[in-house]
C-alpha cells in the first residue's frame, strides 16, 4: 500500500508537462507530415490527427518499448543485488544504447532521442535526488539511493564523453527503474507521454484546439495506448537473452516506413517551429 502511494506520487511527477525534458520541441514527424500534404482533405483534423497518433504510436511502441523494458530490467537487477557492480551495469546499458543507435537510422529522430534522453538523466540527478539538508543517518534505503545516483551520474558522464549516445528509451528505462516505478507503469507512461506530446504538437501547429486535444486524449487515445502496451510489453531486444533466437523474428522493428521518411525530411521544411 505504502509503495503504491509512492508510485502514484511518482507518476504524478513524471506526467507533469512542465518537466524540462525537451519534449515540447519535438513533434515526432507530425509537422513534416502535415507540411508534405498528408493530412487528407476528406477527413476532419481530429480524424487525421488520430490516424497519425495511431501509426506513430504503433511504430514507436514496437521499436522503443523493448529497449525501455531491457534498460529497466538492468537497473532493477542493479539495485536488487548489491553484488552487481556498476561497471557491469554500465556495459549492459551501453550495449542497449549501441543497438538502439544502429536501429535508429533517421538523423532527425536520433537528434531528438539523444537530447531528450540526456535531459531525463539530468532530471534524475538534479531534480529527483534527495536534497542534502534532508539526508539523515545511513539506512538501507539511503545507501540504495546513493548507488542509483552514482549509476545515473556515471551513465551521464559516459554520454558527455561520447562513449555512448544516451537514447530516450534507454534513459527512460533507467530513470523509471531508478525511481522504482514498476515496468508496467513505466511502459504505459512512456507511450502516454508520446501520444500526449503529439497532441500538444497538434495544438501548437494549430491543427486542434486545446479542448479538442484534451477530448481526444481522454476518449480516443486511451484504447490506442492500451493496445500498443499489450502488444509490445513482452518484447525484448536480442540482448536480453542471447540464447533466444526468437528476437530475430520478433524483436524491435519499424512498422511505419512512411512516417520514417517524413520524419527524416523534417529539416527540409522551408519554415518550421519544432526540432523534429
Amino acid at each position, binding site marked *: 500500500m505504502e509503495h503504491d502511494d509512492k508510485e502514484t506520487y511518482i507518476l504524478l511527477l513524471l506526467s507533469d508537462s512542465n518537466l524540462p525534458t525537451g519534449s515540447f520541441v519535438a513533434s515526432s514527424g507530425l509537422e*513534416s507530415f502535415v*507540411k*508534405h*500534404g*498528408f493530412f487528407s*482533405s476528406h477527413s476532419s483534423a481530429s480524424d487525421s490527427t*488520430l*490516424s497519425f497518433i*495511431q*501509426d506513430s504510436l504503433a511504430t514507436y511502441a*514496437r*521499436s522503443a518499448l523493448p529497449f525501455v523494458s531491457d534498460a529497466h530490467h538492468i537497473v532493477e537487477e542493479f539495485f536488487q543485488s548489491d553484488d552487481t557492480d556498476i561497471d557491469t551495469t554500465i556495459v549492459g546499458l551501453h550495449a542497449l544504447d*549501441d*543497438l538502439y543507435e*544502429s*536501429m535508429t*537510422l*533517421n*538523423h*532527425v529522430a*536520433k537528434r531528438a532521442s539523444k537530447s531528450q534522453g540526456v535531459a531525463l538523466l539530468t532530471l534524475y540527478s538534479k531534480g529527483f535526488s534527495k536534497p542534502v539538508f534532508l539526508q539523515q543517518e545511513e539506512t538501507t534505503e539511503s545507501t540504495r539511493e546513493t548507488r542509483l545516483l552514482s549509476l545515473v551520474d556515471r551513465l551521464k558522464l559516459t554520454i558527455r564523453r561520447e562513449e555512448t549516445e544516451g537514447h530516450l528509451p534507454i534513459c527512460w528505462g533507467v530513470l523509471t527503474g531508478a525511481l522504482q516505478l514498476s515496468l508496467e507503469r513505466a511502459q504505459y507512461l512512456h507511450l502516454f507521454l508520446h501520444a500526449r506530446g503529439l497532441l500538444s504538437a497538434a495544438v501548437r501547429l494549430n491543427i486542434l484546439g486545446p479542448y479538442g486535444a484534451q477530448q481526444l486524449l481522454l*476518449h*480516443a487515445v486511451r*484504447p*490506442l495506448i492500451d*493496445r500498443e502496451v499489450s502488444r509490445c510489453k513482452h518484447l525484448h531486444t536480442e540482448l536480453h537473452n542471447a540464447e533466444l533466437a526468437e528476437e*530475430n*523474428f520478433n*524483436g*524491435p*522493428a*519499424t*512498422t*511505419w*516506413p*512512411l512516417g*520514417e*521518411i*517524413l520524419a*527524416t*525530411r523534417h529539416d*527540409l*521544411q*522551408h519554415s518550421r517551429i519544432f526540432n523534429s
Partner: protein
Amino acid sequence: MSVVSPSIQKIDIGGGRIVSRSHGSAVVFSELSSTYPLKLLSPRITQAGVALVYILSYGGGLVGGDRIKLSVDVGSETTLVLLSQGSTKVFKTRPGNRASGGAQRTSCSSLGPITTTQTMDVLISHNSALFLLPDPVTCFRSASYNQIQTFRLSGDSSSAVLLDWVTSGRKSLGEEWVFSRYYSVNEVWVDGKKIVKDVLLLEDSIEDTKPLPQRRLGDKLAPYSCYATLILYGPLVQNIILSLNAEYETISVFKMNVPSDLIWSISGISDGKGCVVRVAGKDTEGVKSWLGNALRKLEDVMSIDMYRRAFSA
C-alpha cells in the same frame, strides 16, 4: 547453369553458396552451388574484376514454408553483383497446385499462412564490393515473408550497395497491401561492429479499435505502393553519397496540399562513410527509375551493360 560442386551434398534444401575469388583480372567462382527451389545463374561478364549472379527460384516464386539460405563470400579484389529476374513473388501456397505435387511444401490452409523465409549472409573482404540490386519483393494476398540479411564488411576498403524493396502486391488483381506479414532485417557489420540494423515489419491485422474506425496496413502506407530502402557504404560509393546529399540539400518544402508521387530521404551513418536512403512511390516503375538515376555512377564500376540489366524496365 549453376556449377555442381561436390559440396552440394552438404547444402540443405533451398541452400546456396557463392564464393568469388580474384584470378588475374578475372573473377572466378571457387564455389557456386544451390539446391531446389533456389537457383543461381552466372552469365559471362566482360568487365574486369566483376562477376554477376542471378538469384532465381524455380517457378518464379516462393511459397509458404520455403526456406532459402544463401551464403556469399566476396573475395578480395572482386566485385560481385547480385540480381534477380523480375520481382520475388511470395505466394501463400503454390499456385494451382494446392492438393497435388507441391503438397510436401504447402501446408493446410487451416493452419493459417506458413511463413516463407530467405536468409543471406555475406562476407565482403578487403578491396571488394557487393552490389545487391534485386527487383522488389511482391507478397501476394495473405502471404507471410521473413527476410534476414547480414553483411560483414572489412575495414574501410570494402563497399556495399544494398537494395531492399517491397511492393503492395498484384495491383492488377486489386491487391493493395493485403499480404499478412512482411518482415525484413538488414544488418551491416564493419570489422565486427554492428553499425546498421534496419528492421521493417509490415503486418496487416484486423483488430477491435473502437471507438476508432479500422485501420488496415493499406491505410497507413497510402498513397504509396512501393517502399525501398537503400544502404550505401564504403569508398566505391562516396561519389554517389555526395551527389545524393547535394541533391537532398536543395529541397525546400513549402506547404503542400497533396502528397507528391514520390518522396525520399537520406541519413548518414558512420560519419558519412555510408548512408541510408528511403524511397516511397505511387508506382514501382517510378521508384525504379529514381533508383536508377541515383545509382547511375555505378555504371563506371559494373559496366553500362550490367547497370542496364539491373535498372532497365
